[in-house]
């Protein structure tokens, strides 16, 4: 289950505080996604979208760290 795809927040609509929405870009396709559970969402952030809701904000630092570690792989311990 759980097809969730990362997309970039283009704009945020907080007119309804119980249903905060964002326009999110996936490739060149844009869709409205509910970001109600992402406290610190800003324009430019990447969120993980599943069935029209944002599950989490992508941790850019972590992503970079993991990719760098993978690219330099060959060292004994990775990052457990």
């Amino acid at each position: 289950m759980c097809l969730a795809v990362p997309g970039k927040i283009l704009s945020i609509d907080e007119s309804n505080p119980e249903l905060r929405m964002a326009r999110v870009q996936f490739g060149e396709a844009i869709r409205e996604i509910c970001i109600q559970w992402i406290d610190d969402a800003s324009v430019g952030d990447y969120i993980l979208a599943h069935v029209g809701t944002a599950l989490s904000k992508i941790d850019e630092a972590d992503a970079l760290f993991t990719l760098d570690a993978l690219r330099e792989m060959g060292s004994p311990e990775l990052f457990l």
Partner: protein
Amino acid sequence: MKPEGKFMLQCPIPKSEYECILLAHGGGGKLTRQLIERMFYPLFENDILLHGHDGAFLPPIPGELAMTTDSFVVDPIFFPGGNIGELAVNGTVNDLICCGAEPLYISLAFILEEGFLLDDLWTIVKSIARSARHAGVKIVTGDTKVVEKGKGDKIFINTTGIGRVLPGLSISPEKCAAGDVVIINGSIGDHGVAILTEREGLAFESDIKSDTRALNAMMLDVFRKCPEIHVLRDPTRGGVATALNEICLSSRSGIRLRENDLPVNDAVRGACEVMGLDPLYLANEGKILLILPEADAMEVLTIMQRHKEGAQSRIIGTVSSDHPGLLRMETSIGSTRIVDMVSGEQLPRIC
């Protein structure tokens, strides 16, 4: 003086007369004549049609003829990039091209549902006329029937086309040979996504449009300069995967695709990732697959890329003797998998 068809902006049958199609519009009497004379004849005008016979008298055509028929029942009938009318002309034109024929004449039959808006019919008929003009084909005969409300789905269209097979061409899956290349003229999945996103709840803000267009200008150019084409197929329903699987089965060859070479536009890609769809299985209405000897590939690509409808043409795979009857693909990570036939339309998934 009656205004020339293509300059008629408004529906020639005003709302004050009839807003919707009635059963009588298909009855063959006064209302049918009204549709034919006020809507169809002015837009489709050509010498053959305007004779006014039930059938069309065609001038002699030298050489071998090709004939193809298709019915169009798409829902929604209006979608980004076009409507059912464009599909009805371009689909049949492209089918004739796939026979190696120059499209010449088309018949046009409507089955309309009682209650269908005349304004919508007008929009569709205008699109049909525009597409036929663009493709250089004449609409020479037709028919209109009306079914009771609930017994149809707004509008169904059938088009049958006749074309002249170009001398020297011999298109057949049996001619598929190991080492041949597979070429496509542009991005895949555009039409399928455009249709799906029109349906309720799947809307994206994007530049996704149906790719419906007639390919005869580009392909006649290819045929004249490079007649050594082995197979042609338009990857409509079921997408590139279905079309190539059918070729593999009928030619008993194998085909090997390269995932990294498949052209997918960014908006289609984004929508497909979100909905869990594979563009290989989505319909295309302005695309053609060519299988031809590798030696001719560069020349054919150059010709195709000179045309707007072929600007993104590229080689996406090769014919192989290794796995007869099977379509395989080298994935972006270097593994190889079978690209199978699937039954039924691909549906968006959450899993």
